[in-house]
C-alpha cells in the first residue's frame, strides 16, 4: 500500500492489517515513554485546507510518537491565501522530500491528485464530501475492540448523509467488515441512489431499536437555510438520538464535533453507551498505524498476519 486515498481501495485484509498494527501501538500508549523511533529522520507534512481539531491533532501527535519530523501547514495564513494552486503548493512542500503528506481538502479527489504529483505517500484526511478513510478505520477499530468482529452487526447511520464524507467511508468500511447497514435521515439529506451501495434506506427511526450501533452524524445549521430540512426543531423531533430512542444495549458513535441538542441529546453523549471519547483515543493509534503501514511496514519486518486481531506481538521498537 503506497497511499491511503479511500476506504474503497482497501480490501478487508488491508483494513485488518492496519487495525492489528493499531492494537500494538495501543500498547506503546501504555508505556511511560510513549514514543518509538520508527520514523526518525523522516518528514511528515500535514496540509489542511479546512479547519480540523481531531484529525489534524491526532495525525500530528501520531507522527511525533513515531519520531518523525513534522511540518504542519494550514491553508489560512499560508501562500494558499495568495492564490497558489494545490499543484504548486505540493511542489513547494515536496522540496522538503517528505515521506508522507497528510491532506485535508474541501474537494473530492484532491488527495488522489496529490498522489499523482508527489513522490510522498499521501494520506487522505478528508476530501470534500467524498471520503475520510482514517475516520472509518478508527471507527472500525473502536467497534472491533467491543465486538471482536463486526460480522452480522447491525449499524444505523443517522443524519445528514448527503454532506458527510464520514458516512460514505464508514458505510464502505462497515460493509467490508461484514456489518449490515441501515441509513436513516430526512429524504433530501440522503443521496439519490445510495441504496445501490448495499445499504437499507429509511426515513424513520421507528425501527432503530434493531441496531447494535447507532452512528449519528453532525447536522450543520446551514442546512435549514437551504431547505434540506424545514427547521432544526423539526429535525431534532424526528432524528435526534436521545435516551428515549437509544436502548440500554445499544452503542452510540459520532465523528465529532457534536451539536449538543440537535443530532444528539446531552444525556446520550454522556451515557456509558457513548463511544465518542473512545473514538478520539482510537484515532491516535490508528493514525500511528496508518503512518507505519505506509512508511515503515515491509522495511523492517513483515506486516502482521491479516485477521489476527489480538495476539500478534510485532516488535514496535524500543522506546526512543
Amino acid at each position, binding site marked *: 500500500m503506497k497511499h491511503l486515498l479511500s476506504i*474503497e481501495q482497501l480490501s478487508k485484509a488491508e483494513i485488518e492489517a492496519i487495525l492489528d498494527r493499531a492494537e500494538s501501538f495501543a500498547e506503546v500508549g501504555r508505556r511511560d515513554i510513549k514514543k518509538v523511533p520508527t520514523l526518525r529522520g523522516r518528514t511528515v507534512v500535514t496540509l489542511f485546507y479546512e479547519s480540523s481539531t481531531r484529525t489534524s491533532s491526532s495525525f500530528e501527535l501520531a507522527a511525533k510518537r513515531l519520531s518523525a519530523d513534522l511540518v504542519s501547514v494550514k491553508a489560512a495564513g499560508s501562500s494558499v491565501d495568495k492564490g497558489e*494552486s*494545490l*499543484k504548486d503548493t505540493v511542489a513547494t512542500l515536496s522540496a522538503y522530500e517528505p515521506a508522507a503528506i497528510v491532506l485535508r*481538502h474541501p*474537494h*473530492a*479527489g*484532491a488527495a*488522489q*491528485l496529490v498522489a499523482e504529483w508527489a513522490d510522498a505517500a499521501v494520506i487522505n484526511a478528508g*476530501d*470534500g*464530501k*467524498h*471520503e475520510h478513510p482514517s475516520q472509518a478505520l478508527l471507527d472500525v477499530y473502536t467497534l472491533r475492540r467491543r465486538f471482536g468482529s463486526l460480522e452480522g452487526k447491525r449499524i444505523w447511520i443517522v443524519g445528514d448523509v448527503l454532506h*458527510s*464524507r464520514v458516512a*460514505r467511508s464508514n458505510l464502505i468500511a462497515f460493509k467490508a467488515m461484514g456489518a449490515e447497514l441501515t441509513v436513516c435521515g430526512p429524504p433530501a439529506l440522503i*443521496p*439519490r*441512489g*445510495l441504496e*445501490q*451501495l448495499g445499504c437499507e434506506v429509511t426515513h424513520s427511526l421507528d425501527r432503530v431499536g434493531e441496531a447494535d450501533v447507532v452512528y449519528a452524524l453532525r447536522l450543520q445549521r446551514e442546512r435549514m437555510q437551504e431547505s434540506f430540512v424545514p427547521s432544526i426543531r423539526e429535525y431534532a423531533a424526528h432524528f435526534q438520538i436521545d435516551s428515549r430512542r437509544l436502548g440500554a444495549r445499544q452503542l452510540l458513535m459520532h465523528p465529532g464535533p457534536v451539536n449538543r441538542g440537535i443530532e444528539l441529546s446531552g444525556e446520550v453523549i454522556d451515557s456509558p453507551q457513548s463511544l465518542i471519547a473512545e473514538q478520539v483515543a482510537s484515532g491516535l493509534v490508528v493514525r500511528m498505524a496508518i503512518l507505519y503501514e505506509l512508511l515503515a511496514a515491509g522495511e523492517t519486518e513483515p506486516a502482521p498476519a491479516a485477521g489476527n486481531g489480538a495476539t500478534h506481538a510485532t516488535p514496535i521498537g524500543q522506546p526512543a
Partner: protein
Amino acid sequence: MSPTQLEMRSGESADLILRGATVLDPVAGIDGEHDVVIRDGKIAELATPGAAPDDGLETIDASGLHAFPAFFDPHVHLRTPGQEHKEDIATGSRSAAAGGYCGVLAMANTEPPVSTPADVEALCADARNAASVRVGFLATVTRGMAGEELTEMASLRDAGAAGFSDDGLPIRSARMLRRALQYQRLCGGTIALHEEDPELSGAGVMHEGPVSALLGLEGIPSISESTMIARDAALAGYEGGRIHVQHLSAAESVEAVRAAKAAGVQISCEASPHHLCLTDEEVRSLDPRRFKMNPPLRTEADRQALIEGLRDGTIDCVATDHAPHAAEEKEVPFEQAAMGVTGLETAFASLYTELVVPGALDLSLLIERMAGGAEPFEIERSSLAPGSEANIALCDLSVEWTVGEDGYESRSLNSWCAGQKLTGRVQMTLAAGQIAYRLRSFSIGVAA
C-alpha cells in the same frame, strides 16, 4: 432575411483525383467504389475506378479508403475573443479539419460574449484570415448572456450572426425566450438552447445517481435538462419559433424532443460523441480533464436512449461541444475544474469505434448524422453528388491510432478520449473546395 453566413480563408481550389475510393453519401444515394474527380474545387465526376484519366491532376491512391461528405459541427467553442490561451479560430478550425469537418458553428460565450454587430463582424473578418474550414458565429440571445435584455438580433443577423445562443447558460426566464422567439419572425436565425434548470442543477458537477452518491459529488438530475426542454418546446410551439436543443444527455430529454416533434414544433437537437460513448461510471476516476462537462455523463440507459434517438431521427445530428481548456484549469480537484472536453479531432473515430464497429449503429447513419448539423441552421448539407462543391472527409477505417500520441491540432489537451486506441482516422479533408487538412503521415504520393 439574410442567408446564414459562414466564413473561411480563401485559398487554392483543389484539383485532384481520389482514385478507387469507397464513396458513401447516404443522403445522395451514393455507395460504391469510384474515382472521385475534383476540378476547381467541385466534384466533377464519380468515375469507374481506374477510368478517370490523370489529366495532370494530382492523384491520390484512395483504394481502401472511404470518402464521406465532410462533417458539420453546429456546436464548438473557439474561445475567441478573450480566451485565446485555450483556442483560437486558426487552431480550432484546424482541429475541425483534422476531424473531417468542413464547417463549424462557434458559440458566443466568449470574453466578452458576442453580443454586438461589431463583435460578429470582427470575428467574421478573423475567420476570413485564419479559418481552415467554414466558421459561422452565433451571437448571444441576451446581452452579455445576462438573461435580462435581448440583443439586437436583426442587426446581429445582418452583421453575419449564424444564429443565436446563450450556450453555457440556459435562458432562465421563459418570458425572455418568448420575446426572442417572437423577434425571430423578424430576423430569422435558429435559437440554440443549452437546456438546464439552474434551480435543479444547483452547484452540481456530475450526473445525480449512485455514482455521485458514492463520490460525494453534488449531482445534476436528468430532469434539470428535460423539464427545460419541455418548457422551451412549448414556447416554440406557441410562438411558431425555430429552436435547436444542444447536447442532449438524458433519456427523458430524448423523450421530450420526440414528443415536441410529434406535436409539430420546429425543433431539432444534437448529441455529443462523449454522451454517446461514455457513462457516469467514468467519473469514478475523478479525472476532470476527460470526464467533467455540462451536461454531465449520464447512465447506460441514457446512453442507449441517445443512440436510439440518433437511429430514429429524434436526434438530428452529432455535435462535439468542443470545449478546450488550459491545463491548469483541469489540474485541480474535480469540483473546481472547468466544464468541457475537446472532441473535433476524435468525433468520427470515437463513434465509429464505439458504435459502428460493435454494430450499434450503421456506418451510413453515422455519416448522415455527422453532416446533419448544418440543416438546423439553414445551411446546405455537404454532398458527394457530382456538381457539388468538394466537401469530403477521406477516412481510413482500418487504421488504429492512439489519441494524442501525435499531439493535437487544438491548442488544448482535454480530449475525453486521450490515450484511447481508436479505429478509423481522417486522412484528408476538403472543405469548400480546398484541401483543409492532410494527416502528416498520409502519403500524398502520386498513384502509378
